[in-house]
């Protein structure tokens, strides 16, 4: 009995170590991108003797800090250093705040950001801070990836949206482009640590934001899913409606 427990614990520790390493590799690769952007913009400003690049440097550095923060959150959750309290959460409020958090990045990439909170849905059971972090991570990945799909300008749009499905209430990030299939998400997640570009249909980078989001939502016993919203496709989180009447 004791041996079995020890074996299980060792299995858990080894698997957590592997998961940590995979996440760190993915995030480290991803961080090269904003750091290169900052370095080259700073050099360009130096060469030209202008200040026009400083705003872009600020936005990029902020986005990188956000990724690091969300990565650290996911790491703490993965290793059991942090427990999330689940509470009634207003989805529309989270979508709005997440949208605001990535607006600067979207402007920088020429992506039009929309927040569709038209439906009147009650609160869901989640952790507000974690849900927002997951949505920001997803959105940042898609914002950076969209121009790389070489879509015509009207399709450079991303929408934070929520809708009801038979499993509960979905909050997610959606795009017009039809490249995202349900199997793309599952395949990408399964390639974590095994391929340089697990989500190569969505992004030219390592897709770290999706893995970070996945780790965070799993800590809430939830899952990322490919879903549709008004003909758009995206990645969302399905949550159970909260029965309490009070919102936090």
């Amino acid at each position, binding site marked *: 009995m004791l041996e079995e427990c020890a074996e299980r614990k060792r299995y858990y520790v080894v698997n957590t170590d592997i998961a940590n390493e995979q996440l760190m590799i993915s995030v480290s*690769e991803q961080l*090269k*991108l904003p*750091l*290169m*952007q900052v*370095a*080259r*913009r700073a*050099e*360009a400003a130096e*060469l*030209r003797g202008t200040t026009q*690049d400083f705003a*872009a440097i600020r936005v*990029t550095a902020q986005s990188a800090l956000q990724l690091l923060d969300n990565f650290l959150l996911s790491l703490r959750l993965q290793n059991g250093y942090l427990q999330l309290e689940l509470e009634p959460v207003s989805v529309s409020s989270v979508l709005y705040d997440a949208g605001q958090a990535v607006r600067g990045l979207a402007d*920088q*990439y*020429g992506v039009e950001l929309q927040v569709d909170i038209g439906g009147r849905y009650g609160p869901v059971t989640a952790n507000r801070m974690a849900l927002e972090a997951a949505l920001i991570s997803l959105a940042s990945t898609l914002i*950076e*990836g969209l*121009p*790389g*799909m*070489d879509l015509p300008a009207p399709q450079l749009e991303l929408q934070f949206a929520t809708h009801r499905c038979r499993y509960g209430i979905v909050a997610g990030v959606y795009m017009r482009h039809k*490249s995202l299939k349900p199997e793309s998400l599952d395949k990408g997640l399964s390639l974590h640590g095994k391929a*340089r*570009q697990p989500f*190569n*249909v*969505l*992004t*030219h*980078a390592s897709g770290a934001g999706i893995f970070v989001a996945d780790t965070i939502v799993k800590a809430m016993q939830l899952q990322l899913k490919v879903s549709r919203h008004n003909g758009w496709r995206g990645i969302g989180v399905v949550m159970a409606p909260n029965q309490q009447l009070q919102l936090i």
Partner: protein
Amino acid sequence: MKNSDVLLIEPDAELASTYRRALEDDGHNVRVAHSAQSALHLADEHQPDVVVLELQLTDHSGIEFLYEFRTYQDWQTVPVVVHSIVPERVFQTSRLVFRQELNIHTYCYKPTTSLRQLRATVHALKV
């Protein structure tokens, strides 16, 4: 010296903007493609003098682009500067094939290649 027509294949819109401006400041005409597919379209519309290529693209990679690019006679001798976030040591098992068969002029590791160095590399091609 004639200004070169540069086809810049860079998936990141933010980096593409910075690199394009830097090369234009040097007097080159720069066309930007974010994907392998659109890069082929652009090359078809305007014959490039030089290609600056990121290998890690969305969907089809720069490797696939390069193999396809080199199958066309009019593009077989266009100098290609690989300017990638992927370090060259990744291709060590097939490195000779990679460099020679694909006729790669220079391989620049993007994180450690400054704008000055990129400009100097393109300038040195003296098309």
